[in-house]
C-alpha cells in the first residue's frame, strides 16, 4: 500500500512534468531537452529558497518562474538566433548544469530540517486525523503525511490541468497551438510565431520546474543529477497517455498525459518490486519510448501490406 501511495504521488508530480513535455513535444513539435536541466533548476531554486526560510508555496512558484526563464532562453536561441531546436535545448540544458550547481552551492541539498510542502501537508493531515500519525485505509496502515501529500498532489494537478485547459482555449493558447500545427497559417493571421515559441517553451519549462520543486520537497532533497533522462520520462508519459485516450484534442491530451505519467510510474514501481535492477531503469524507459514511437508505424505498414494483398 505504501508503495502504491508513493508511486501515485510521484506519478502525479511527474504528471505536471508530462504536461510540460506535452506542450513542447506535441503542441510545438519541439523535442525540448531543456527539461533535463529545468526540472533540476526547479528543485534547486525551491531548495535554496526553503533553506532561506521562504514559505513553501512561494518557493515553489519562484522555482516555476526560474524554469520559465530557462525555457524562454531555449525559445530565444531557436526563434531569434535560428539555432536548431534540439541544439538550443542541449545548450541550455548543459548551461543549466553549472547554473544549478551555482544555485545549490554543492551537488546535493537535503531539506530535512526545513518546512516544505510535505510538512505543511503533514500538519494539515494531523489536524484532520485528530493527531494520529497513521490511519487505516482498506486494512492497511498508512502514514497521514503520505496520504495528505497524495491528496495535495491530486488537487494541485487537477488545478494545473484545468488552468492549462482553459489557457489553451484562450486566444493566446489557440495561437500557440496553431504555431505548432501550421506556422505559415498563423503568421498570415498576424501572429509572431517566434514569440509564440518563446512563450510556449517558457510555459512548458515552468511546469517542468514546478514539478521538480515539488518532487524535491516530497523526497526531501534536491540533487544536481535528478534531471537526467527526465525528458524521456516525460515523452513516455505523453505517448502512453495518447494511447490511453486516443484523441488529439487538448482536453484529452492533458488528461492522457497525467494518467500516462501515473501509469508509467506504477509500472516502473511494479517492475522494481519484482527485482528489476534500478540501474536498468533509464535503458528500459528509452526502449519503451523507442517502441512507442516506432511500433504504430510498423503496425500501419504491416496492416497496409495485408490490406493490399487482400485487394489484389
Amino acid at each position, binding site marked *: 500500500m505504501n508503495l502504491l501511495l508513493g508511486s501515485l504521488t510521484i506519478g502525479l508530480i511527474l504528471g505536471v512534468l508530462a504536461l510540460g513535455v506535452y506542450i513542447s513535444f506535441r503542441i510545438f513539435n519541439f523535442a525540448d531537452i531543456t527539461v533535463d536541466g529545468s526540472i533540476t533548476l526547479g528543485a534547486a531554486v525551491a531548495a535554496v529558497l526553503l533553506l532561506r526560510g521562504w514559505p513553501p508555496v512561494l518557493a515553489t512558484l519562484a522555482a516555476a518562474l526560474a524554469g520559465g526563464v530557462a525555457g524562454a532562453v531555449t525559445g530565444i536561441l531557436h526563434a531569434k538566433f535560428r539555432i536548431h531546436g534540439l541544439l538550443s535545448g542541449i545548450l541550455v540544458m548543459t548551461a543549466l548544469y553549472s547554473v544549478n550547481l551555482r544555485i545549490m552551492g554543492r551537488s546535493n541539498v537535503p531539506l530535512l530540517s526545513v518546512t516544505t510542502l510535505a510538512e505543511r501537508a503533514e500538519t494539515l493531515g494531523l489536524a484532520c486525523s485528530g493527531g494520529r500519525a497513521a490511519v487505516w485505509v482498506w486494512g492497511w496502515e498508512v502514514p497521514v503525511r503520505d496520504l495528505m501529500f497524495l491528496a495535495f498532489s491530486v488537487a494541485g494537478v487537477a488545478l494545473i490541468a484545468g488552468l492549462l485547459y482553459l489557457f489553451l482555449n484562450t486566444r493566446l493558447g489557440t495561437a500557440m497551438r496553431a504555431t505548432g500545427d501550421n506556422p505559415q497559417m498563423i*503568421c498570415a493571421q*498576424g501572429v509572431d510565431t517566434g514569440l509564440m515559441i518563446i512563450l510556449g517553451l517558457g510555459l512548458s519549462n515552468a511546469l517542468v520546474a514546478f514539478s521538480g520543486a515539488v518532487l524535491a520537497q516530497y523526497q526531501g532533497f534536491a540533487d544536481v543529477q535528478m534531471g537526467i533522462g527526465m525528458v524521456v520520462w516525460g515523452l513516455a508519459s505523453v505517448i502512453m497517455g495518447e494511447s490511453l485516450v486516443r484523441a488529439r484534442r487538448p482536453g484529452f491530451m492533458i488528461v492522457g498525459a497525467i494518467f500516462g505519467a501515473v501509469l508509467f510510474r506504477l509500472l516502473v514501481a511494479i517492475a522494481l518490486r519484482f527485482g528489476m535492477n534500478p540501474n536498468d531503469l533509464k535503458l528500459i524507459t528509452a526502449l519503451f519510448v523507442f517502441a512507442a514511437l516506432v511500433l504504430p508505424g510498423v503496425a500501419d505498414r504491416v496492416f497496409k501490406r495485408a490490406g493490399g494483398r487482400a485487394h489484389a
Partner: protein
Amino acid sequence: MLDVRDLRKTFFPDTPNEVRALQGVSCQILEGSFVVVIGTNGSGKSTLLNAVAGTFPLDAGAITLAGQDVTGWSEHRRAALIGRVFQNPFSGTAPGMTIAENLAMAARRGHRPGLGWALPRRLRDAFADRVRSLRMGLEDRLDNEIGTLSGGQRQALTLLMATWRKPALLLLDEHTAALDPKSAEQVIALTHQLVTHDHLTTLMVTHAMSQAVNLGDSLIMMHRGRIIHALAGEDKRRVRAEDLLARFDEVRRMDQLDAGAASLLAANYM
C-alpha cells in the same frame, strides 16, 4: 492602395543556382481594383506576391500599402493589412484545429493574441452563418478538425478567413491550381462574390487563361522578373484568351531569338 516601386530580388546570388526573380518591378493598384497577374513559369509572379506579403527581405525597392511604407515590416506585421490564400490548400489552415478555431484566429487577424476566450458564443453563431453561405454543409461541422476536409473545402474556408476582416489587400496565389475542376470553379465563384461584395483590392496570380480573361479589371503579364505587358479598363475587358496566348508565343520567340543570337556570337567570337 498598393504602390510597388522597383522591386529587386535575386535568390542564391553569386552561385550557379542564381535566380533573378524580380528585376525592377513597379506597379500601382488602385483601391478597389482587382488585378490579375499571369506569366510564364519562373517569371516571378509568385515572387512578386510573396514580396508584397513580406515572406523574404528585398534586395531593393519599396512597398507602400494603405498609405504606409511597409518595406521594413515583418511578414506577421503586414498580415494586419493583408489577407492571403496560398496555392497549397493545406497552407492556409491549421489541420489539427477545428473549423471554428481556425475562423476565430482569422477574425482576430492583426491583433495581438491575448488571454480572452478564443471562441465566444456570438462569434460561433457568426461563423455558422457565414459558413452556411458556402453551401458546403460545413456549418454543422464547426467542431471538426480542418484536416478532415477536402482541398476545395479548405480553400473556400481559407478565402473566408482571409476576407473575414476586410483586408487592405487580398493576395491570391494560384489558389485554385491544386484543386479539381469542380472545386476550382466553386472557389473562383466564391472569390468573385467576396471581392465584388466588399470591393476588395485584390492581386491574383493565376495560370488559367479563362480566369485571367474573366476575372479582374486589369491584368499584368510578367516574364523573367519584369512586367512586360499591362492591360486595364476597356483593353482588359476586350482581351481574349487567344490574345494572351499569342503574346506568350511572341515572348517565347523573342527568347529563342536571343538564345540563337547568343550561340551565334559564341560560335563566331569564342
